[in-house]
């Protein structure tokens, strides 16, 4: 017992709760944790059910008849799914890289207390946190003035920077990078670009990971930008595709590579209900596997954000 007590926080070490209370707390947490996870397992089980069983008896917690027909259908109708997957991956990768660069460079510049325009740029970052143009004018500026409508940039650019992330970066650079390091590089004649790219970024992995993860999940999970700016089905991300399938299950068949069957036949035979859930699982799977590994970065990111800059 003594060895276990060492790693405990103050609350746990002294005055622990009684056995009965402990059991009660565990039960409460088990219940809440199940409520958070079970719905997804249900979706998984539906995606693995046979379409026939759903047609007859509806969705079930546990599949009455196992079948992978939804997945084989989704894979067979490859083009649309693969394209959407490609868009999602492209947007996530490009967006994350671009966002991290834009955010950290601004954060670095703002962390330099001798910089002349620091005051001005601080306002540039700060004002959008308090006031914004609203959805309508953003929409018209982005689609008409900047011409982003129906381009993949509409999915990437508007989400690239958030003032909150810039401030996290600024706080990080200010508190962890010693002034002497930058000064000595300046004396050695390094330009600010060189200092930023070859000295600051390599030693700032924790904050890069934090911002990168935030952006990564934001891009992967985004559906709103698609809904606003994308009409062209070829530019649908996985989220937009699922969104479309939720209102119109036949959408998949419309774009299907017809394997010698007519559209109407395909619509009649496709596993509509389960195909929907299969796409949902395709979206969730990478997230569900990745996030437990990255959780500690998220936690450090959230905690950094809670400290004032």
């Amino acid at each position, binding site marked *: 017992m003594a060895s276990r007590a060492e790693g405990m926080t103050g609350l*746990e070490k002294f005055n622990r709760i009684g056995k009965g209370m402990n059991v009660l707390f565990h039960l409460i947490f088990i219940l809440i944790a199940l409520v958070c*996870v079970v719905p997804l397992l249900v979706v998984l089980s539906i995606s693995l059910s046979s379409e026939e069983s759903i047609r007859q008896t509806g969705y079930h917690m546990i599949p009455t008849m196992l079948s992978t027909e939804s997945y084989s259908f989704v894979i067979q109708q490859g083009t649309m799914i693969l394209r959407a997957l490609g868009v999602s991956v492209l947007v996530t990768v490009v967006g994350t890289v671009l966002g991290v660069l834009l955010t950290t460079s601004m954060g670095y510049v703002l962390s330099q207390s001798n910089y002349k325009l620091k005051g001005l740029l601080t306002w540039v970052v700060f004002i959008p946190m*308090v006031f914004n*143009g609203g959805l309508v*004018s953003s929409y018209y500026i982005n689609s008409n003035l900047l011409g982003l409508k129906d381009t993949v940039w509409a999915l990437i650019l508007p989400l690239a920077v958030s003032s909150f992330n810039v401030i996290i970066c600024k706080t990080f650079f200010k508190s962890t990078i010693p002034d002497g390091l930058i000064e000595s590089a300046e004396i050695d004649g390094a330009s600010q670009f060189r200092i930023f790219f070859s000295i600051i970024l390599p030693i700032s992995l924790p904050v890069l990971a934090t911002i990168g993860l935030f952006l990564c999940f934001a891009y992967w999970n985004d559906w709103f930008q698609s809904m606003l700016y994308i009409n062209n089905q070829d530019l649908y991300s996985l989220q937009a595709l699922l969104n479309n399938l939720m*209102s119109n299950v036949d959408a998949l068949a419309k774009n299907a590579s017809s394997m010698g069957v007519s559209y109407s036949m395909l619509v009649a035979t496709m596993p509509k209900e389960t195909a929907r859930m299969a796409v949902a699982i395709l979206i969730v799977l990478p997230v569900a596997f990745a996030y437990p590994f990255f959780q500690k970065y998220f936690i450090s990111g959230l905690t950094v954000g809670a400290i004032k800059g």
Partner: protein
Amino acid sequence: MKKTGQKRLRTRWRKQDTELTLLALPTTVWYILFCFLPMFGIIIAFKNFKITGGFLSNVFNSSWSGFKNFEFLFKSNDAWIIIRNTLGYNLLFIILNIVIPVTLALMIGHLHNRRAGKVYQTMMFLPYFLSWVVISAVIWAFLSFDKGIANQMLIQMGSEPVNWYMEPKYWPFFLVFMNIWKGLGYGMVVYLATITGIDSTYYEAAVIDGASIWQQTKYITLPMMKLVIVMMFILAVGRIFYTDFGLFFQVPRDSNSLFNVTTTIDVLVYKQLKTATVGMASAAAFVQSVMGCLTILLANWIVRRIDPDSAMM
């Protein structure tokens, strides 16, 4: 000597300043295009805006309408509904999103088995990482009329199935539940980080003085969490005119029968934007921005009067 030297350096524009400006330039351009241009686009709210040609020519050619758009907005029946929904749901969310995660964070710190605590926490964090589109599909699996699990259960228990997406009376509960469900893991992380950061000597001293667990929580843990709780509170109050669009649009599947209980400012603005009644939508978005700005400044001002250290600005 050193001080004056530094002062002279600070007043002169150095080579570093040019380089830093260039380094900040791309992000500054981004801010101008995506944050500041839309601020000037607010002008739409005061115009008879027509969506035909290019944006600039539209803005210049449409006639001024003064406050007509606002009049139209506030005289409609929708105005009262969307303001009531936006403020009402947000007030509930603010209270519950502090009370429930704080309580659970306090509880999880007391569990004897730390590894189990970590597992619970990871499981509870999962919904935070899902998109509303996926969640909407999950909810559909439970609430769909003919195949949903909820109705299967009702039928098995001998009750009549309910057409969930047509019955407004259930939705306030669903929406509040979904909001807490999605944000629980996030809130717990924030509060738990504060709790683990508390110096254990406080508890040591308290135990020596014979303090019970409840007294320790009341006199040590909660006061130490005050700062973070107040911060989360200001952030939430500052967003009181904004709602999670996904929650109010995707989850109820834009069902018209649920209009009265699920339409918030964001949802109305989006719907009108898509049906091209731009005038009222831009007026609503403008009111939202201005009120949002005022509330965040007000919340911050109040907090600064109570506790200067907790204020953001």
